[in-house]
């Protein structure tokens, strides 16, 4: 069979080389041993850019847009380290953004987007006080019962949270009071639920009572 063996030290191809256009015996191009260079020299230089009023205006628009977007409240920059020296010229530069924060329309967003208010017990108290004024004593008792129940459910839901996302009912409760529990547990994501650990009576100031006796 033609081409099956090495003909006189020269490699033969399995197909008719004339089909691709090499005449018999002509020099084949060099074998490529490495990837092409990343910046090859080009014989054909690129065409010059379009110039004109339109292009100039769009260029200005582009640069303006870039600058403006950097100043918008949507631009979330990573906080850099404070400068070592307080520069005098800082006074003359655009330091603080005028509208540093922007609040989205919460009605259009999923409820989990809304940051939970960090109102601790102090915040919850006036709420409770306000709401309990018009209500009678019975209602207050009911509310306390409800809250106790909610606390229990809170703890249960904490465990389930890692497995599946909350069902609608629990989701609802999490969003409402008591928000302070929610806040701590969701953000810190640790296993310690603060209500489990109660500072004992002896903790802190209590132990000074019997100091006249020496301890062994």
């Amino acid at each position: 069979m033609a081409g099956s063996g090495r003909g006189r030290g020269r490699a033969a191809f399995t197909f008719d080389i004339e089909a691709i256009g090499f005449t018999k015996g002509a020099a084949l191009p060099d074998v490529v041993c490495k990837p092409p260079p990343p910046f090859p020299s080009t014989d054909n230089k690129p065409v010059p850019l379009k110039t004109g009023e339109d292009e100039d205006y769009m260029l200005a628009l582009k640069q303006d847009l870039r600058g403006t977007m950097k100043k918008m409240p949507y631009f979330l920059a990573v906080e850099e380290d404070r400068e070592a020296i307080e520069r005098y010229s800082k006074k003359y530069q655009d330091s603080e953004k005028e509208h540093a924060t922007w609040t989205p329309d919460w009605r259009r967003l999923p409820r989990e987007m809304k940051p939970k208010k960090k109102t601790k017990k102090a915040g919850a108290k006036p709420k409770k006080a306000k709401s309990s004024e018009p209500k009678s004593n019975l209602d207050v008792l009911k509310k306390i019962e409800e809250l106790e129940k909610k606390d229990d459910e809170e703890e249960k839901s904490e465990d389930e949270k890692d497995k599946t996302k909350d069902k609608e009912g629990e989701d609802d409760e999490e969003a409402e009071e008591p928000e302070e529990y929610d806040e701590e547990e969701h953000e810190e994501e640790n296993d310690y639920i603060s209500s489990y650990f109660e500072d004992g009576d002896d903790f802190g100031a209590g132990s000074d009572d019997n100091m006249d006796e020496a301890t062994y």
Partner: protein
Amino acid sequence: MTQAEIKLCSLLLQEHFGEIVEKIGTYLIRTGTQPLRMIISDTGLLLDQVKKALCVLIQHNLVTYQLQKRGFVEYEAQCKRVLRILRYPRYIYTAKTLYNDTGELIVEELLLNGKMTMSAVVRKVADRLTETMEDGKTMDYADVSNTFVRLADTHFVQRCPLVPETPESPDAPPPPAPTLVINEKDMYVVPRLNLVGKGKRRRSCDEEENGEHKAKKQKQDGESSEPPPDDGIYWQVNIDRFHQHFRDQGIVSAVANRMDQIFRSLPAGYNIVKQVLDQYLTLLADDPLEFVGKSGDSGGGMYTVNLHKALASLATATLESIVEERFGSRCARIFRLLLRKKHLEQKQVEDFAMIPAKEAKDMLYKMLSENFVSLQEIPKTPDHAPSRTFYLYTVNVLSSARMLLHRCYKSVANLMERRQYETKENKRLLEKSQRVEAILASMQATGAEDAQLQEIEEMITAPERQQLETLKRNVNKIDASENQVDETIFVLESFIESTVKKP
């Protein structure tokens, strides 16, 4: 999403929204639809940051959310929409050409903020226009409103999907996420607003201000805390409509280039005599480009614009031009030949193109290695023996277009990186020049002598000025290049899209 697209999206997000948003956006583009806790755990960012970033992305229509059946919400990034950020200057400029400065500012504000209510847009634009007007003149809200209505009527801006008005039963818990709906008919309906007022200047000392006016003004500002009459009705830019406009522009200018002489002699208005019109239409219909087709003769014939063919020609013209610039005019000749004749053998290429065999071979291989041209095997025998197979060169326009589009994305990414690099290299110098300008401005405001001003100006030495000039020139060049590559991206994308969608 290809790597090139992801990289480009990442650069665009970082440049316009900062690193935190970039990280989350890129993560979502790479991994697809994810719930909130996955985003937090995989990106390693704080809950607070992730929430803020998602809010920003959703506000700008770059990320959408969906409530899943099991009750949790998943977020999905819109990669294509992120790539549109490149085209913002073109949208704004088009609005300017169609609706003047007012239109330009309306579109700009909407693009900068993602979504806004009409009253907010009108107020902001009126203020901005007032700033640029002469002292004492203000922009009336009514004018801005009118332009807004015109933009809505021509579909350049559209309403965002609305929060459905659920009959609130106090027992049923609200869903974790609203399902936004929009009725096709309502998309361009402008709410009836009675926007009365004029733009305000930002300067604190206004001519009108005295004791009682100040009180009134405060009251007015206080009013803004009440919900505006069109609360909840948000508007966004209708990008597709702009694309339609660009496409039409492209086709019109292509035909104009073709029919150069005829176009010049056409009268300006539409008062063309019927006979003349007939002639031109016939010419257009018979043109080998096949932009205009004639179907039937009833009523004098029905003429249509064949959009798909038009887009295909535009894309092909772009391909030819790229080949010509990259490989030379002879290669371009071979390329055009292959486009015409579809499939050719090596020998036939040499004959038809009238190029010596060796060079033709060389050029064909160069184009083949860059994937502009491909080989089609046609076996003569069932065993596909290479010696008994036809090898035909061919150009597959669609795949070449895709390949080029991918290259364009890469180019823009490279351009952006280079621009950022240049800016970073000269950061110190740029900051210095900004400080000097700030000092100069404040000194001029407080009234300083020329000698002092000159002293401050000399803080920047001559070679430094030179460096700044070079930097500015380079950055401008790169920016202009990005704009132009985006034009090519638009042509190629429109063509590819037209082949994918079923007519």
